[in-house]
Every structure is written in structure tokens, then in C-alpha cells.
């Protein structure tokens, strides 16, 4: 999927709040993990539920399509999870990545609810598998979905079908009629035809705004045009913007997105997991002017790829080139596209379209600064350069053994941090007051807990826990 999605023009004339039949007890806006969890829980509690998925069936599931695991606390081995992962350790891990930028109560609520959520997921037909090859470090903390996130989404949609949830695909919500924190209905475009849908309650679980490049440009300037979006092109954040305009309290930095350095040849949207490129720590990275700009060996890659997303975004044309030699060619997960490969450096530099003199000079300066020492690929080996700026502080080995390989790098946006504020019952607050009938879950509330940084698999935990709460709370309200 390499095209941006357009939003139809709303026909406000058909919005008739307070009039017409109430279509459902609950309308769920969104079709990813959190939306599905909410729909299932509400339907299990007896509600009539309509789920509005903006994508066509083949692309249903939002960014959950691309996910692979669920971070989960447990005191003893649980399903595919080994050993234990105590709630305190989980919370400490969160503090580390967010640098304390989290709502402690909500975070602890999500963490404490995660083992129960795991059991619940299993009952809904979600299947887990042991840690994938190359991800053994996660076997204690993260439960992997058999077949990945799309298989999870499939299981949830089947469960929805069994429970009688009405699923509408290609349904774009254009407007929500909200007065004093109460929603009457939503203006929806269903495959080109618009209608006003009324319901007793609403769960908003339609993600962030990472696929809205115009919005990204507000914070990043024209550079954002060159960003690649790793997930669904349907997360345009228009409902998020409306909720904020209509008085919902915001949370999270409105300018920030989580971006990682990915393969520069990836599709503009929806490239998903395979676009990651793990060669940077073993390489020399130059920008399009042939200049090095940061310590490639600062830390192990999972701890640095997000920083590199930002670094590459700051380079001219938002592109960089990672160059390795034969010594390092098999030290990282295979890339989705083959590397540019040549037997000599000048040839490679030419093929990559880099300036010959500057690039060669950068690599020569780096090579001359490499010192003797023991190289250890899987740990911080302290093999550092001496007398080159910027220094490379680990895994610094000269680029001197043909064949040589080059990859281009670009920033790949994963998600945005801006969201709506919710309380512990997933209810959206408007000007500090709880909404009467609007709940939110998933990426649109993640900023409450993940103020910055990211913890693998935690997005799915937040989505599942808050999705379930939102569904059950909406049911309590609608059943009154």
C-alpha cells in the first residue's frame, strides 16, 4: 500500500442530532486490537454493537495487523511465557523508556491487568507461539501471536461475527456530534454514501495520526514528506483532531512521533516489520554528503533504532547510508531487500549515488581510527575508534574486506504520542469532566501511559486492557 488515503467531504446537511432511530447500543470507531476487544466485551454483555472499520476487509485491523506480541506480567510461567515477569520489573522497564513520563496509576492498572488479559485473549481464539528465532531475549516478557497480528485480528473478527457484532468496512467517520461531552451520533461515509448513525454509546479506538503527512509537517516541516509510515495508511487522526477541537482533554506531545531508522527502499506506507534494518551498529553511516554524523556503536540496536529514526530525519533529504564489509554481512537479521553489493568501495559509493571523495575520506578516516581489540557482536565490546569525530564506541572494525554492502536508511514512523485524556474507566474527559457516553482505547489513549519512548509489545497490552474496559463500561452505561 503506497498511497495516502483521502478523506471524503462531509455532508453536514444530513447530520440530524436527536432525530431518527438509534442504530445500536454501541458504535465502535476503529477496527484494530482495542476496537475489537471493546466490541467483543460489549457484545458479550448483551449490547448491540456496530463496528466501523475505515479500511476495506483485506486491510482491516489497523496497525494491529503488523504487531507480533503482547507484553505481559506474570508470577510464574504462563502459556508461552517463561520464568516470571513481576509487575514491579515491568513498571521499572516502562519508567526507563519513558524517563518517568507516564501516568503511574494508569500504567500500573494496565500492567496488573495484563495476565488476566492474556487468559481472556486465549479464550477469544487468539493463539500464541514461543518467541520467534532471533527474539529469544523477549521469551520472558512478550507472548508472540501465532502467525502475527493479522492472525490475532482474524480471530477477533471471527469472535465478533459469532457474537453478532455488525462490522461495516470502508466506513469513514467524518464527524461526531458532541455537546457537553455527550455524543449523539456520527456522520459516516460508507463506501461513498454518507449517513448519520446514532447510538447510545461510543468507543473511539481509531489510532493516531501518523499517516497524515500534512499533520506531521506541522511539527516536522517539509522533511515529513520524506518520512516512511510503517503502518496502516488509514490512521489519519481526523477523529482525534475533532475530539480535541470539541473540548476533549489532550495528552502527549503533539509534535512527537515514534520513528525508527528503516530500509530506505521500503514502501511509503504499510511496510511493517520487515522494513527494519539491523546493520547500523556494525557499519559506518554517512549522509548524502558522505559525512558521518553520529556514533554508530553507541549501544545495541534495539536500544538505538528510535534515536536513529530521529537522526536520519535531521539529515539532508532525510536519508543516510549504512556501509558494511564482508566481515559483518551475516551478523544481523536478513534484510527484506538485498543490499547494494560491490567488490570495491569506490564502486559501491558510486552505485549508492554518494559523492566519491567525501565518502571515501570519511571511511578512510574511520578506518585509520580503528584500534586492535576483541570484537564481540552480541555484547558491548568497547572496541572503539581513536581520533575520529564522531567516535564509534563499540564494534569499530575497519571497512576493508570485500565485498562491500550498502543500505539506504530513512525514518520510518511507527506511531504518534498525541491522544485524548482518559480516566481509569477509559472514559474520555472534556474540560476535566468525564464524558457521559464516550470512551477511548488503543493508540489514541497510549500517550497517557507512554509519554515517550517505546516498550516492545506494550502498545498491544494498553490496547487490550483499555479496549476491554471501554467495552465493559459502555455496556454498564447502555444497560442502565
Amino acid at each position: 500500500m503506497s498511497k495516502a488515503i483521502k478523506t471524503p467531504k462531509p455532508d453536514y446537511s444530513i447530520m440530524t442530532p436527536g432525530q431518527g432511530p438509534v442504530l445500536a447500543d454501541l458504535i465502535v470507531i476503529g477496527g484494530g486490537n482495542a476496537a475489537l476487544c471493546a466490541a467483543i466485551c460489549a457484545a458479550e454483555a448483551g449490547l448491540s454493537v456496530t463496528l466501523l472499520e475505515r479500511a476495506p476487509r483485506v486491510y482491516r485491523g489497523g496497525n494491529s495487523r503488523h504487531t507480533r506480541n503482547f507484553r505481559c506480567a506474570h508470577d510464574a510461567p504462563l502459556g508461552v511465557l517463561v520464568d516470571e515477569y513481576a509487575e514491579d520489573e515491568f513498571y521499572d522497564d516502562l519508567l526507563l523508556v519513558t524517563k518517568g513520563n507516564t501516568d503511574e496509576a494508569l500504567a500500573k492498572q494496565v500492567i496488573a491487568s495484563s495476565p488476566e488479559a492474556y487468559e481472556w485473549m486465549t479464550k477469544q481464539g487468539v493463539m500464541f507461539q514461543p518467541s520467534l528465532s532471533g527474539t529469544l531475549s523477549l521469551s520472558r516478557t512478550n507472548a508472540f501471536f501465532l502467525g502475527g497480528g493479522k492472525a490475532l485480528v482474524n480471530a477477533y473478527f471471527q469472535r465478533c461475527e459469532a457474537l453478532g457484532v455488525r462490522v461495516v468496512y470502508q466506513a469513514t467517520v467524518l464527524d461526531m456530534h458532541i455537546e457537553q461531552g455527550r455524543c449523539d451520533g456520527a456522520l459516516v461515509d460508507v463506501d461513498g454514501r454518507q449517513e448519520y448513525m446514532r447510538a447510545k454509546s461510543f468507543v473511539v479506538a481509531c489510532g493516531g495520526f501518523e499517516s497524515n503527512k500534512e499533520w506531521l509537517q506541522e511539527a516536522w516541516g517539509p522533511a515529513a514528506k520524506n518520512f516512511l509510515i510503517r503502518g496502516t495508511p488509514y490512521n489519519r487522526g481526523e477523529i482525534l483532531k475533532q475530539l480535541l477541537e470539541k473540548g476533549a482533554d489532550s495528552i502527549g506531545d503533539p509534535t512527537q512521533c515514534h520513528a525508527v531508522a528503516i530500509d530506505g527502499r521500503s514502501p511509503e506506507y504499510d511496510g511493517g516489520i520487515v522494513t527494519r534494518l539491523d546493520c547500523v551498529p556494525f557499519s559506518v553511516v554517512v549522509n548524502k554528503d558522505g559525512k558521518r554524523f553520529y556514533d554508530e556503536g553507541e549501544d545495541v540496536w534495539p536500544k538505538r533504532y528510535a534515536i536513529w529514526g530521529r537522526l536520519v530525519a535531521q539529515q539532508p533529504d532525510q536519508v543516510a547510508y549504512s556501509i558494511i564489509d564482508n566481515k559483518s554481512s551475516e551478523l544481523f537479521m536478513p534484510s527484506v531487500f538485498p543490499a547494494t553489493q560491490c567488490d570495491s568501495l569506490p564502486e559501491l559509493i558510486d552505485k549508492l549515488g554518494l559523492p566519491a571523495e567525501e565518502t571515501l575520506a570519511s571511511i578512510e578516516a574511520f578506518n585509520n581510527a580503528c584500534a586492535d581489540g576483541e570484537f564481540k557482536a552480541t555484547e558491548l565490546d568497547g572496541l572503539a575508534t581513536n581520533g575520529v569525530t564522531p567516535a564509534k564506541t563499540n564494534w569499530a572494525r575497519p571497512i576493508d574486506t570485500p565485498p562491500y554492502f550498502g543500505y539506504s536508511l530513512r525514518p520510518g514512523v511507527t506511531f504518534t504520542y498525541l491522544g485524548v485524556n482518559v480516566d481509569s474507566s477509559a472514559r474520555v474527559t472534556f474540560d476535566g469532566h468525564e464524558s457521559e457516553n464516550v470512551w477511548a482505547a488503543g493508540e489514541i489513549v497510549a500517550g497517557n501511559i507512554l509519554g515517550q519512548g517505546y516498550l516492545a509489545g506494550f502498545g498491544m497490552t494498553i490496547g487490550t486492557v483499555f479496549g476491554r474496559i471501554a467495552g465493559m463500561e459502555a455496556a454498564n452505561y447502555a444497560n442502565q
Partner: protein
Amino acid sequence: MQTNNYDEAVRQLTVCNSCRYCEGYCNAFQALTRYRSFDKPTVSHLANLCHNCRGCYYACQYTEPHEFALNIPALLADIRAKNWEQHVKPSAISKIMQISIWPYVALTAMFTVLLTVVSQTGWSSSEAFYTSISHTTLVSIFLPLFILPWVSLSLGVRSYWKSVGGSKLALSDLKTAFGSAASMKNLSGGQGQGCNYESTERYTHNRRWAHHATMYGFLLCFASTSVATVLHYVFNMPAPYSLFSLPKLLGISGGLLLSYGTFMLALLKWKSDSALGSVSRTSGEYAFIGLLFLVSTTGLILYWSGGTSFATGWLVFHLALVATFFVSIPYSKMVHGIFRIAALSREAQIQRLAG
């Protein structure tokens, strides 16, 4: 779709290798993660491990209309069939019998005429069961038919085995391979939930059970024939046998299973999305399933119509189908079983040698 060239296989498998979400479905994906690049023997090996369960397709983020356009089940089905066609000689016969129903129709017609002529030229003996066609005549027709295909098949598998770099087998390799085949382990979905063959995103056991019925039904029928052969030659006990004799018990239960299994396999194939298989070979696959169904069903009808005048003509038809089946073994889809065992053995061998 471009599924029949090696470059396309490398492209798709490379996407899989940088994703790996499907590792839990079957051993083809577990094997895939051993490689950083895919040469032709590796692609062949992975293709012959694949059972076309389609779990990976329905879980895939990258199927069309996504530009990565992955369709691993169809890709590997094509490559698998090309392997059979390439290694089992003569390739020209393989190729036509993999794609078309007509060779089967023609062979059956030819054998029907041949056997009718033979049965009416007075070669009949007075042996009770073989009043229509003498036993010796039957044997002289069927024995070469039985042996020649096995020669061709053996040479074909040997050629495949060499091409994927197979070395001397250990008993444990064969044990692992036959164990997997006997339980259809790689059609279990990885955790016993079943496969997605005909049911899109849902997991069912339908195909696994249908295949079990077909495979074990066939083996029972084969056992029945073998036992009868031993009774005939070793114990001088020619047919007919009573209902509670070993040949009859094996034959009837096997025939029922085989008829049911092949009927179900055809039904599931009809329900399934043909774009996820080897599209150009769909007719050949139906022809093979249909042939097996007819062999067992005509056999069962023959048993119940024994002694009537109808039985004579019917026996000729049944035997013509059996002859067609035996002649076509190395060239029909039947060959998949042998290549599958070879691939499973090779996989067990690779894992054993890696320690």
C-alpha cells in the same frame, strides 16, 4: 501472478525471512530461518516441505493488494510440482499428467478396450473368481505396469535427493519423516488447531481428516491386495474370500475410507481458493483424486454385485481404472507422497547433522 520462476521465489522467501511471524505453523518456516539466501536446492527443499495448509497466507500482512504480493502457498505449490516434473522421467509425460484430466480418461478407455478384448478371446480359465479374465492374463498385464512406474519413481526421487544435497540417511531420519507423515503433523497448524485450506481465516481439521482417510484407506487396500497375493501364491488359496477373511476386511474398510477421503478432498478443493494452489495444475489434481475415488468406489460396487452378469463388465472397468492408477503413479499427484517423505527425511537429516 508470477509464481513459476526462481527469482520470484527468492523475492517472496526473503520477505518471509525478515518477518518470521509464521514460524509456528509448520516446519517449512522453521527451516527457512536457517538460511540467509535461497539457492535453488533450498527453494526446492522448502517447497516439498509445504503441505499447502495456507495458514501463512491468511495470517500474512503482505498478500495482495499489498505491493509485496506474497502468496507462499501458490508459489511453493508450483515449485513443488515443477520438481516432480523435472526429476521424474520422462518429463513430458509428467507435465501433461500434472495439468490435464485427458491422459487419465484416455488410459482408462484404452485399458477398458484392452481388457474387454482379452476377456472375450477365450483365454478364460475355469478358476472360480477369474471366470471373466484368467489370473495369468491379469498378472501378465499388471506386473509390468506395477514395476515400471516404481523404477521411474525410484530414479526420480534419487535425482531429487541428490539435487537437494541429501546424504546417507540414518534410521532416525526416516522414523521422524514417517512419523510426521503418519500424523500429518505439518497440517496441524502447529498447535493442533488445524489448517485454513478451505476455510479462509478459520482453522479446521477437515483436510487433515480427509487426507488421513485417503492415505490410510489406500494403504488398507494395498495391504488387502498384498495379503491376497500371498494367499494365492504361498498358501494356494485363490479368491474369492469370505467376508471375514483378511483380504476382504482390509479391502472393504480401505475402500470405504478411500472413497470417503477422496470425495472429501475433492469437495474441500472445490470450496478452497484455487489461486492459493498450483493454478495451472488444478485439473490434473482433480483427475487424480477422481481416479482414486473411482478405483475404490468401483471396487466396492464390484464386491456388492459379485456373481451377477453386471459384474463382468464392471470388473473390466474397475481393473482398467486400477491399471490407469498404477501406470500414472510417478506422473500424477500421487508422486507428492514420495517427495514429501524425501523432504521430511532430508529435513530430519539436516537437523540431526546440525546437532
